[in-house]
């Protein structure tokens, strides 16, 4: 109770402040009068004692804050050029970063390697009770049939608990029949789910996730065709999803099953097309070209109303359908990607650079305010009080800067999207985490950079340049680092676009007969393979047909570990492989039919293993056998996209490998029309096959990389702009400050060269040290980036990227310092000397 009373006494003191002050003053006056005249000096400093007494009322910090705020705003208003400059610097730092963050956030989905994933929409139901992402499974077909605005609509339900063999809690997903075909996913092995699996009477089938296949199935393709038990019921595995796809829901999916299989796995559960009771199916779709998101929402809402007549309990009475771009709902998962951590780090660096800039401006301004500060100190202001006042000003600046940054950021984000030619559907959102981060960061940076500046300003006798120079150094280091990183990435982007796929992937199809699903004896499989390829060769438009276990760009790899060598990407191929896909043989020859223990190596393998020697005829220990090198082919380039260190080796397709073989069909023109003819040709040979276009994955990879380069490049540019502004300001300020001195120097005959060197040399060291540490950091960072982004350059130190970045930085730095410095040359000595 007592603290409460104390609180009220303070409130009382606050409300009756004037009376309190008067009482105190009168009392102190009386005291002094009562003292003997000679003694009065012993009373002490009246002003300070009153201040101390007032502090007892304890609201004084609030009071002082109000005073400081008042004063700060007034001084800022009095120096509009400085204020606007500082706000602009902060706005640039904060704003551009917010913009970048938004865009990166929106773009990270390219990691999914699904084409146009930015345009995927997730639907949810909104009522006054809130948002619900699930729909009754029976509604899905109704929506699909009734919608005119959607190119496709798929459903995915991850709410069922499955027991697979003895493994409980397997993350599984029940999907609509058109799920994989609509998303454009390519199988790694076997086939993915399609319409026939959802037909009435179809047997239960499933597709494994790549990760699941690796961890629980020892990465054996023979798993295709095997029967597993899901909830005790037999289910046949028909394929493995590619390693790039983990499902649309936020959790990585281990097993996909068609929705229609539900009654079999959960006896007693209603057929999905009649189930209105369980609203757990997530709906995803894509708009038809020209259709608007609003139209789709209105349409689906109308369909929902219609459904409600017959199924009043399936929905909430005020349910509306809302369409949201998938990226918004997937954001959480993307956040965990390590690339984001690096990206965030770089963003922080740019902000740091902006703040270093601000710190420098504050210091310069502190010098200009020396007179005012000295007066305040000599009038009895404590140093702490002056610092506090300066910091209040800094916070006002930080707040204004952050606000301006938000506005600026949203404009920049849209501008950048234009520049990057982003898909029109890509959504930019400014959400609370981003906002809060921005504000907190700005606040923290106001402390980190404002405080040293304020401390130095409040100590007028020490005019050391160290702080300012180290701030310049920091900026130089950061922008150097960012430019180099952008340089390396840009170089990499160009390199990977230029990675020559030595074969014509545009005109090739992968046709998988899935022998592994049937465990055929190798001899039989080989026979069937021959029959099938004969059948396919006779199709019009087919140039050649060959077979390999690992079709290029097909989502599979066969890795061999050879001590002392980079990862060896092995492929087992028919002798006709190289000719059929147009991969030139550089030396030696291809295999002869039935030739044992031979290997064909790629150029890079040959160079790596037998430096400066002719590899043909050499023996090589690979896959547990002694192989003789028959020939050398060009690097295919297919594995380089995923692993630049990779080397390639080809062994004859024989033995157990035959079962895993796929056919590769090269066409004369666009291979797409063949997709419709191949199943028929395969059927005549008694086979059923899965078909994919080779170009799909390649195009996805390139698009994602191009955007990454634009993004990093623009961060580098912002950091450089900031550093340039910082150096410009520093030199310009030095010119203004030393105008008199320079005037005298010119008057007594200093030449332009001398004047320039006086001005420029003071920044030479911080710039040099900053640039050196920037380069050092860039080397460290590029190692890190290398582990995340696939870099094409074989050396870990990308000379061209580094020097391009560095050169770009030096050019900007030179311009930023020379322009204001040359202004000093135009100083008129007589005018300057008259000025004061």
């Amino acid at each position: 109770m007592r603290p409460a009373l104390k609180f009220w006494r303070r409130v009382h003191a606050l409300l009756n402040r004037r009376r309190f002050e008067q009482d105190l003053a009168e009392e102190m006056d009386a005291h002094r009068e009562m003292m003997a005249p000679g003694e009065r000096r012993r009373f002490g400093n009246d002003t300070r004692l009153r201040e101390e007494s007032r502090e007892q009322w304890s609201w004084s910090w609030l009071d002082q804050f109000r005073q400081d705020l008042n004063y700060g705003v007034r001084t800022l208003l009095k120096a509009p050029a400085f204020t606007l400059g500082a706000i602009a610097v902060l706005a640039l730092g904060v704003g551009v970063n917010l913009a970048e963050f938004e865009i990166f956030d929106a773009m990270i989905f390219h990691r999914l390697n699904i084409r146009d994933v930015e345009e995927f929409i997730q639907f949810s139901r909104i009522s006054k009770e809130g948002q619900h992402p699930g729909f009754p499974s029976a509604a899905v077909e109704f929506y699909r049939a009734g919608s005119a605005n959607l190119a496709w609509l798929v459903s995915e339900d991850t709410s069922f608990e499955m027991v697979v063999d003895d493994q409980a809690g397997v993350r599984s997903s029940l999907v609509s029949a058109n799920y994989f075909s609509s998303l454009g996913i390519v199988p790694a092995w076997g086939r993915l789910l399609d319409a026939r699996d959802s037909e009435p009477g179809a047997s239960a089938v499933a597709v494994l996730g790549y990760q699941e296949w690796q961890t629980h199935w020892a990465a054996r393709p023979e798993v295709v065709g095997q029967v597993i038990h899901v909830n005790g019921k037999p289910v046949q595995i028909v394929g493995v999803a590619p390693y790039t796809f983990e499902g649309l829901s936020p959790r990585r999916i281990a097993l996909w099953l068609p929705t229609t299989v539900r009654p079999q796995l959960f006896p007693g559960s209603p057929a999905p097309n009649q189930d209105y009771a369980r609203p757990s199916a997530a709906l995803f779709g894509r708009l038809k070209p020209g259709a608007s998101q609003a139209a789709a929402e209105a349409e689906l809402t109308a369909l929902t109303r219609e459904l409600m007549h017959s199924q009043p309990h399936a929905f909430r009475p005020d349910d509306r359908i809302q369409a949201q771009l998938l990226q918004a709902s997937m954001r959480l998962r993307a956040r965990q990607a390590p690339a984001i951590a690096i990206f965030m780090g770089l963003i922080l660096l740019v902000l740091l650079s902006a703040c270093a800039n601000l710190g420098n401006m504050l210091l310069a301004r502190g010098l200009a305010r020396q007179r005012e500060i000295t007066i305040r100190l000599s009038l009895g202001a404590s140093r702490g009080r002056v610092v506090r006042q300066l910091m209040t000003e800094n916070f006002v600046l930080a707040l204004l800067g952050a606000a301006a940054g938000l506005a600026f950021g949203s404009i920049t984000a849209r501008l950048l999207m234009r520049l990057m030619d982003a898909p029109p559907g890509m959504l930019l959102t400014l959400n609370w985490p981003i906002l809060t981060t921005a504000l907190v960061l700005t606040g923290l940076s106001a402390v980190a950079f404002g405080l040293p500046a304020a401390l130095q300003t409040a100590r007028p006798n020490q005019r050391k340049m160290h702080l300012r120079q180290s701030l310049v150094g920091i900026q130089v280091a950061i922008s150097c680092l960012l430019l180099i990183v952008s340089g390396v990435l840009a170089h990499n982007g160009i390199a990977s676009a230029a990675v020559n796929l030595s074969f014509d992937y545009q005109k090739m199809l992968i046709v998988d007969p899935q022998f592994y699903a049937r465990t055929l004896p190798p001899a039989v499989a080989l026979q069937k393979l021959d029959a099938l390829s004969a059948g396919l060769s006779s199709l019009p438009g087919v140039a050649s047909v060959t077979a390999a276990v690992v079709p290029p760009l097909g989502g599979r790899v066969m890795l061999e570990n050879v001590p002392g060598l980079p990862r060896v990407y092995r492929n087992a191929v028919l002798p006709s492989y190289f000719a059929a896909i147009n991969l030139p043989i550089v030396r030696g020859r291809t295999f002869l039919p039935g030739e044992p223990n031979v290997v064909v190596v790629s150029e890079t393998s040959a160079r790596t293993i037998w430096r400066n020697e002719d590899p043909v005829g050499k023996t090589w220990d690979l896959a547990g056998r002694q192989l003789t090198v028959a020939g050398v082919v060009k690097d295919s380039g297919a594995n380089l996209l995923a692993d630049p260190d990779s080397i390639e080796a080809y062994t004859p397709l024989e033995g157990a490998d035959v079962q895993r073989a796929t056919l590769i069909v090269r066409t004369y023109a666009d291979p797409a029309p063949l997709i419709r003819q191949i199943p028929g040709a395969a059927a005549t040979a008694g086979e059923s096959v899965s078909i994919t276009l080779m170009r799909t994955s390649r195009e996805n990879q390139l698009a994602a990389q191009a955007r990454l380069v634009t993004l990093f490049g623009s961060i580098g540019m912002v950091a450089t702009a900031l550093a340039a502004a910082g150096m410009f300001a520093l030199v310009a300020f030095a010119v203004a400050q030393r105008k008199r001195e320079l005037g005298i120097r010119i008057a007594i005959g200093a030449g332009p060269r001398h004047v320039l060197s006086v001005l420029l040399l003071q920044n030479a060291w911080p710039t040099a040290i900053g640039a050196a540490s920037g380069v050092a950091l860039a080397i460290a960072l590029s190692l890190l980036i290398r582990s995340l982004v696939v870099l094409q350059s074989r050396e870990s130190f990308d000379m061209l990227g580094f020097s391009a970045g560095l050169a770009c930085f030096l050019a900007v730095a030179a311009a930023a310092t020379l322009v204001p410095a040359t202004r000093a040359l135009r100083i008129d000595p007589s005018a300057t000397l008259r000025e004061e």
Partner: protein
Amino acid sequence: MPKGALSMLILRVLHSGPLHGYAIAQRIGQLSGDTLGAEEGSLYPALQRILIEGWAKAEWGISDSGRRVRFYKITRDGSAQLKREVQEYEQATIAIQSILRLA
């Protein structure tokens, strides 16, 4: 002099009856032999603290010399606080003394 000590002395002086600021300073000066001497004014921040804490109440009145002054009167909280502080002080002193003797 430590901050807390001054308010303890003031409370102790007020314990014998209400006094105004100048008188408090005088009394402490007499009793202590000029401890406050260096800066008599430092009494006032301490008095403000005592008021805010509720250890004393102030009332305007007329001094013996006919001057309008503020009289401070210790409250029950103030007496309790004084007792507590004196106790703490004595305990601390005893502890320090015994250490000094033994060490």
